[in-house]
């Protein structure tokens, strides 16, 4: 049983999706889906503990040994990501019952849960696979399902957002496909483990360079690195609230995971950082992204837009840290993968609460809600502090390592920019706080009540996680440390 866990992690949600179609009542479908997601979380946790104890797990599909067949090769990084994805999926489905019941009409709810499970399965598939083409296929499952999920939004803008995302996403995927083709051309293999060896020995050629570039641009399109981010804000804004939560917390993380694999596992940091000017590229784009997108976020009127742009900025943070090319920098990236999922999950869930009551998340509409919906607003405030990076929240921990990394490279100015970025975050959080607490209650908000428990509980689970993992950092720190050492090939 235990030896089968890697595959169960993926196929349980994957096959559960079509099974949902055989269930009549949406409520039962929801129950089924939630159970499945809980199972997935369970599997991922067990896998993580196994990897932590015994090192990487290998599972060859169809009984064909890699590189002949496809294999799952799970090391700490994969396990870590799978836990993040599965956990967020659980939370989202927990909250979905109310929120989706409100935002999506009965006839479509079953289809929603089917698509959601497919999206989950796709992401998990991407995270655990050890075969580049298999990665492409599952990436497409995740992508297609997320287009559908976004298009389910009420506002007609959701359709445009979804189509834009579709075009960009497919473009990115095709770029990655080209990259895969070129790599295969050079090595004749598709297995990551295999490639990492063969590519190291492969002669430095234009083709190798081109391959890397296509991988890089493709993933950057998917992770919305600064100049390629235009598709993201609308996609997050007009999607159903729960979808925003799930995508904001996980989608870009998956892309970042792919990038990490490409840089460190496929091509090797030596090639990426020394043969190529990757460091400068990441630093420049990261810095630009942080400043520009934070500033744009300040001027938004729609709360979802604010946090969508802030997500782009946070991704830029991770890229910046990645560009540092030292242990602390990589650790910061890995920590922030987890921490940012917690923050943004909490924030977007809080927005889901507001959406549930107000049917709108415009800044102008939340006037005085601080006293009407105390718990929801408190959640926003605390998660906001985490976003700013105040101590005792997860945000502080990742900020700390980013600063450390920039000091190690003797880049104090960059440390200054990082801190300045978090001040910009403070500004846009502040706008919300002032609106919610210090502006007079509008007449049509008089009757607004606190959000239902079914939404508050998941929200506060994440908020408390923000605090807990900000205080007791052993889990995230130890994992990210070991992963960073593994990726950089440094002996622990």
């Amino acid at each position, binding site marked *: 049983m235990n030896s089968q866990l890697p595959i169960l992690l993926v196929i349980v949600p994957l096959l559960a999706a079509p099974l949902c179609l055989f269930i009549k009542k949406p409520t039962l479908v929801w129950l089924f889906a939630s159970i499945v997601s809980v199972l997935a979380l369970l599997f991922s946790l067990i896998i993580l503990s196994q990897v932590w104890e015994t090192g990487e797990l290998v599972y060859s599909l169809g009984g064909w040994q890699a590189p002949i067949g496809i294999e799952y090769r799970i090391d700490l990084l994969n396990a870590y990501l799978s836990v993040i994805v599965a956990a967020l999926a659980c939370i989202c489905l927990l909250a979905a019952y109310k929120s989706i019941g409100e935002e999506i009409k009965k006839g479509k709810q079953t289809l929603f849960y089917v698509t959601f499970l497919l999206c989950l399965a796709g992401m998990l598939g991407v995270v655990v696979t050890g075969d580049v083409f298999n990665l492409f296929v599952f990436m497409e499952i995740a992508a297609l399902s997320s287009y559908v999920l976004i298009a389910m939004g009420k506002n007609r803008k959701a359709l445009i957002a979804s189509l834009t995302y579709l075009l960009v996403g497919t473009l990115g995927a095709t770029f990655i496909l080209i990259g895969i083709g070129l790599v295969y051309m050079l090595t004749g293999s598709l297995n990551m483990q295999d490639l990492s060896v063969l590519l190291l020995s492969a002669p430095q050629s234009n083709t190798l360079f081109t391959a890397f570039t296509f991988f890089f641009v493709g993933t950057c399109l998917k992770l919305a690195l600064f100049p390629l981010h235009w598709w993201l804000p609308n996609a997050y804004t007009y999607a159903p609230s729960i979808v925003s939560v799930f995508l904001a917390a996980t989608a870009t993380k998956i892309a970042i995971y792919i990038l990490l694999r490409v840089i460190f596992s496929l091509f090797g940091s030596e090639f990426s950082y020394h043969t190529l000017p990757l460091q400068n590229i990441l630093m420049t784009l990261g810095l630009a992204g942080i400043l520009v997108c934070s500033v744009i976020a300040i001027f938004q009127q729609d709360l979802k837009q604010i946090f969508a742009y802030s997500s782009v900025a946070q991704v830029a943070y991770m890229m910046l840290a990645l560009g540092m090319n030292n242990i602390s920098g990589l650790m910061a990236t890995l920590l922030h993968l987890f921490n940012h999922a917690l923050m943004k999950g909490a924030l977007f869930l809080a927005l889901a609460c507001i959406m549930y009551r107000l049917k709108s998340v415009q800044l102008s509409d939340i006037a005085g809600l601080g006293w009407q919906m105390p718990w929801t607003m408190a959640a926003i405030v605390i998660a906001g*502090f985490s976003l*700013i*990076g*105040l*101590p*005792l929240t997860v945000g502080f*921990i990742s*900020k*700390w390592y980013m*600063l*450390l990394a920039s*000091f*190690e490279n003797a880049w*104090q100015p960059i*440390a*200054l920019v990082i*801190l*300045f970025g*978090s*001040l910009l975050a*403070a500004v846009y959080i*502040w706008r919300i706080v*002032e609106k919610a607490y*210090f502006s007079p209650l509008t007449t049509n908000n008089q009757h607004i009540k606190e959000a239902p428990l079914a939404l508050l509980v998941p929200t506060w689970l994440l908020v408390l996680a923000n605090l807990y993992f900000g*205080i*007791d*950092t052993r889990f995230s*720190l130890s994992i990210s440390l070991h992963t960073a050492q593994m990726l950089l090939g440094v002996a622990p």
Partner: protein
Amino acid sequence: MTYLSDISSLQLLVILPVFACLAMACTRKLKNACELMSIGTGLVLVLVTCQLWHNFSLANQVKVEWIELIPGLTLSLSLTPLGLLFALAASTLWLTTALYAIGYLRALQEHSQTRFYQFFALAMTAVMGIAFADNLLTLYVFYELLTLTTFPLVVHSGKETAVRGGRVYFAFLLFTSVLFFLLAIVGTWFIGGSLDFTPGGLLNRPIMNTGALSAASLLLPLFVLGIGKAAVFPFYQWLPAAMVAPTPVSALLHAVAVVKGGVFTLLKVCLYIFGTDVLVELPSQQFMLYLAGFSILFASFMALQQDNLKKRLAYSTISQLGYISMGALLANGSAILGASMHLVVHAFGKITLFFCAGAILVATNKTLISDMTGLGRQMPFTMVAFFIGSLTIIGLPPAAGLWSKWYLLQGAMTAEQWLLILVLAFSSILNIFYLLPIPIRAFFSPAAAITVKPPVNRVPTSMVLSIAFSSTVCLVLFFLPESLFQLAQAILIRSGQ
């Protein structure tokens, strides 16, 4: 006589206010519950601090580690003479202010008083945390906590002006602490490899070994500017802005807790992070000293121009903080002594002044100094107290301000900072000019006879009591300053002078 071990009492001091806050939340229905609770909490705090003081000795180390945030970075508390000094002043004055606040809030029928008391308590947690922090990280945590918890108090009234003031307050404190303070902390960690407050200076050895003086002298300005609560020159605006708060808040937080938290942090950094030996070596020390000096003079001049009493007191606070920062930066025995004594003395003096301002507001709804001529006849007691407070700030006998200023001067002399000596002298004269006229005109103005009006309403007893207490302390500390002096001495011994 000990009922609690020092360790547990140390933690109690930090935790108790939180519980008080929660308890208030539970009993918000009951009338007067939270007043009683805050008084009770205050009493307990004072008693526990006194007990700590009573069986304090340099010999035994009192230290408790809570949790390790990042490998090598723990949240931990420890008992140091400097911290004890600060805690004593803070807790005593907190009790006094709690007493004062009851009368004040009732007299003005302030809204949502429970919330007020809750955050008031939480602020105390932060102050205690700052006082007993064992390393820079812990200190930073509580430093930010203090900002967060005091903000709701500043904007308590919820009026547009209050919100605007609050915005300035929060913006300045957050901006400085995140942008400079945190950067400086990371820098320290990077150079020193730790953040623990070590007697003789954390950076002492690494710098002396590697000669990383230039890096360290970059750190010093970062610290001085980053600790915005010390209100050194460019970042002082938050303090006048915070005067929109109710008077008890201005009294406790912006005469004692917050600002003293700031200078206390600065003292800590100078003594235990840099260490006096390193500090005097730093090229940037001179600039920082002049910056402090400048902010002393600048604030005094600003104070002269203010007509709003609380605003004037605020600016005077800024200049007084300048004294303490200067003392800290001078980094020689008597300067530190003076700084740490001034920390306490000024606290009592300034709180007296604020109490009086509040009393005047309650009694006559007057906030402008120009309206207060002849007030002495209506409220002689308050004005006498005000007079004593002023003497304390200026540093004239029979008020305790004399001692601290004396040591500060002495410190400046040993450091041969003639310019700064001039600054000190000149600013003391300015103090006279902007403080003394108020009580004098209140009593001896000929015009007063005409503008005599009966007070709008009488000053509540609780307020009178607290005013009496704080002003007497100012006098007492003048006549028998030994205990204070010994504690300050202990600081020097601890920091290896």
